[in-house]
């Protein structure tokens, strides 16, 4: 047998086949997990993109001066106090005179959002010269109309089976034929707070709430976590107590997050009487949850600093504190920051502890500070997912997309920081 024959034969050997098989298993595993991810993101995206568009309806509204501003001051304050609901309703009746019966009128009024009158009010107050004439106004369509236009409500179903009745469909079609229906980018979704009306609901309140909560969480957890790690790793005696603490920190990292929520409820709210439903308390609870992660990550990045650097500093006469804070901590900082960002990303997605401390309340206003009632992104998703209105379905998916976006940004930031700050030696 020649040399090459031996090589060829071993190529088809059992060992070779085993390697090929193992490669195949690995590829299959990756393909399966990737396809799950694709299906998940794909379905959320498909459901969620609708929320970024909102249907608007144009209505000619008569604004009689004697009703809005009897004294003729044209003062925006006076104009704000006037009632626009009736004007809008009569404008709708004028446009569709066939709605005579009480029930028909009711479904006619349901074409536009119940918040439409406020949007007219704001436009008039901003431009008082509109008073005393008939002007076209673009107002939000109601969620049902919006859903019908987007095709989420099937018009071919039995009338009793759908949220939009035959008359409404006829009106929508006539509005569409007149060019009075438009689909626009839904800025309200990104700039508004929560609302009972799906067409009016936005995530700004939840985003700001989450940001404030994470700010508190970072301000508490990062310094405490880093200092604890530095002390345990650099200063304390490596004895039994140190190991005991390490084991317990590792255990704490695995404690279900709802337990931290209960702790927050029992201690922070009931004992210290901190304000309920606020980012302050939410941040404190999440800080408790994130601390073990930050300590563990910081300790391992401190351990990764070569001992020769410590020796070099000691050899020059640097004290323990100087050595630690001039050399060791700066070198470990990228790892510490990365660990913290990953911990924060975890905290951003956390719902259960926030439910326990009451951040699940329905809050319309965008919070202005850490002691104002607020909700957070994952809780907002939970709230919307729980709402019966059809319009909230796409909002839920859209909010998930926003949350995923923030998570991706945070994780990219962690990768970037690691690459950017890492010093090689």
């Amino acid at each position, binding site marked *: 047998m020649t040399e090459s024959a031996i090589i060829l034969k071993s190529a088809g050997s059992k060992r070779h086949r085993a390697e090929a098989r193992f490669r195949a298993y690995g590829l299959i595993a990756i393909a399966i997990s990737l396809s799950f991810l694709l299906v998940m993101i794909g379905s959320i995206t498909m459901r969620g993109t609708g929320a970024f568009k909102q249907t608007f309806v144009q209505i000619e509204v008569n604004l009689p001066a004697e009703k809005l501003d009897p004294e003729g001051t044209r003062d925006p304050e006076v104009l704000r106090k006037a009632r626009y609901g009736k004007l809008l309703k009569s404008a709708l009746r004028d446009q569709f005179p066939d709605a005579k019966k009480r029930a028909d009128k009711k479904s006619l009024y349901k074409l536009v959002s119940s918040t439409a009158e406020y949007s007219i009010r704001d436009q008039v107050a901003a431009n008082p010269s509109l008073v005393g004439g008939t002007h076209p106004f673009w107002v939000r369509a109601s969620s049902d109309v919006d859903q019908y236009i987007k095709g989420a409500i099937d018009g071919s179903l039995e009338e009793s089976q759908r949220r939009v009745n035959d008359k409404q469909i006829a009106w929508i079609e006539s509005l569409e034929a007149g060019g009075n229906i438009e689909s626009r980018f839904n800025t309200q979704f990104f700039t508004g707070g929560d609302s009972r009306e799906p067409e009016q609901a936005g995530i700004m309140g939840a985003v700001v709430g989450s940001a404030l909560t994470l700010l508190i969480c970072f301000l508490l957890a990062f310094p405490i976590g880093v200092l604890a790690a530095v002390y345990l790793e650099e200063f304390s*005696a*490596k004895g039994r107590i140190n190991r005991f603490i390490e084991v317990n920190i590792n255990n704490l990292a695995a404690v279900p997050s709802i337990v931290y929520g209960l702790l927050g409820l029992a201690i922070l709210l009931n004992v210290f009487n901190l304000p309920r439903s606020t980012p302050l308390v939410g941040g404190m609870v999440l800080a408790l949850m994130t601390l073990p992660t930050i300590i563990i990550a910081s300790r391992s990045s401190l351990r990764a600093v*070569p001992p*020769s*650097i*410590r*020796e*070099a*500093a*000691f*050899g*020059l*006469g*640097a*004290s323990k504190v*100087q050595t630690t804070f*001039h*050399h060791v901590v700066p*070198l470990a900082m990228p790892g510490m920051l990365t660990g913290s960002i990953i911990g924060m990303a975890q905290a951003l997605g956390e719902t259960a502890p926030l439910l326990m401390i009451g951040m699940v309340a329905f809050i319309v206003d965008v919070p202005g500070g850490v002691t104002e009632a607020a909700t957070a992104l994952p809780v907002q998703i939970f709230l919307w997912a729980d709402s019966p209105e059809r319009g909230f379905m796409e909002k839920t998916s859209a909010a998930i997309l926003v949350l995923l976006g923030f998570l991706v940004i945070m994780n990219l930031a962690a990768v970037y920081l690691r690459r950017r700050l890492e*010093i*090689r*030696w």
Partner: protein
Amino acid sequence: MVEDLAMNEDTKQPMTPILKVRDGQVFYAEKQAIIDVNVDIHPNAVTAFIGPSGCGKSTLLRCFNRMNDVIPICRVSGSFEFSGQDIYDSEVDVVSLRQRIGMVFQKPNPFPKSIYDNIAYGPKIHGLASSKSEMQEIVETSLTRAGLWNEVKDRLDQPGTGLSGGQQQRLCIARAIAVQPKVILMDEPCSALDPIATATIETLIDELRENYTIIIVTHSMQQAARVSQKTAFFHLGELVEFGSTEQIFSSPVDERTQNYITGRIG
């Protein structure tokens, strides 16, 4: 024997040793690493510590600047004196001790900072420079003394870790002399370097002898013979023989020394 050598080579006058060890003992937990060592180190000379691995020569070296302090299980007894002062006295400030007794390690360990900052760090923490120009002067003098100035003067802002191994080790020497020590301890400074870099460092050590007292731990007997004036041979934690390098290598008194330098043990 120690007393015989306590003479200045030029004047033949007795000299006061800069470092003095009497009954020096070091334990790692229960294991004794240094057994009853008595040694006098004389100023402005190079003293080489030789001996097989694990003989305690690095341990003894690290006693002089109390680098063993960071090892919790390490215990030192006996008398260690630096210029007549007990190194292990509870009143001694380790920081100023290490400023006077600098150290260069086996593996070059520059800080991952610029060349300038590497040198300037020591003077900065000890407050040796009151102005920026003074600091620049210290950096330049230190690098010049370490024979590195001409190679790095145009790139002082570049990381010290970007230099070659030999340059890094000279940077570490420059860093050590920047705090104006009296003694420089060198723990196998050339073991990670190629022969050319080693030769450069050896020349440098010879030049530094003029201003500093140097103790060098080395595994290479040729190196000890080349750079040192005094040699101490350690075996199993004991100081077996201490004398002028010439005498140790040409006519060792102890059989173990003879066996080691001829390559029969080690």
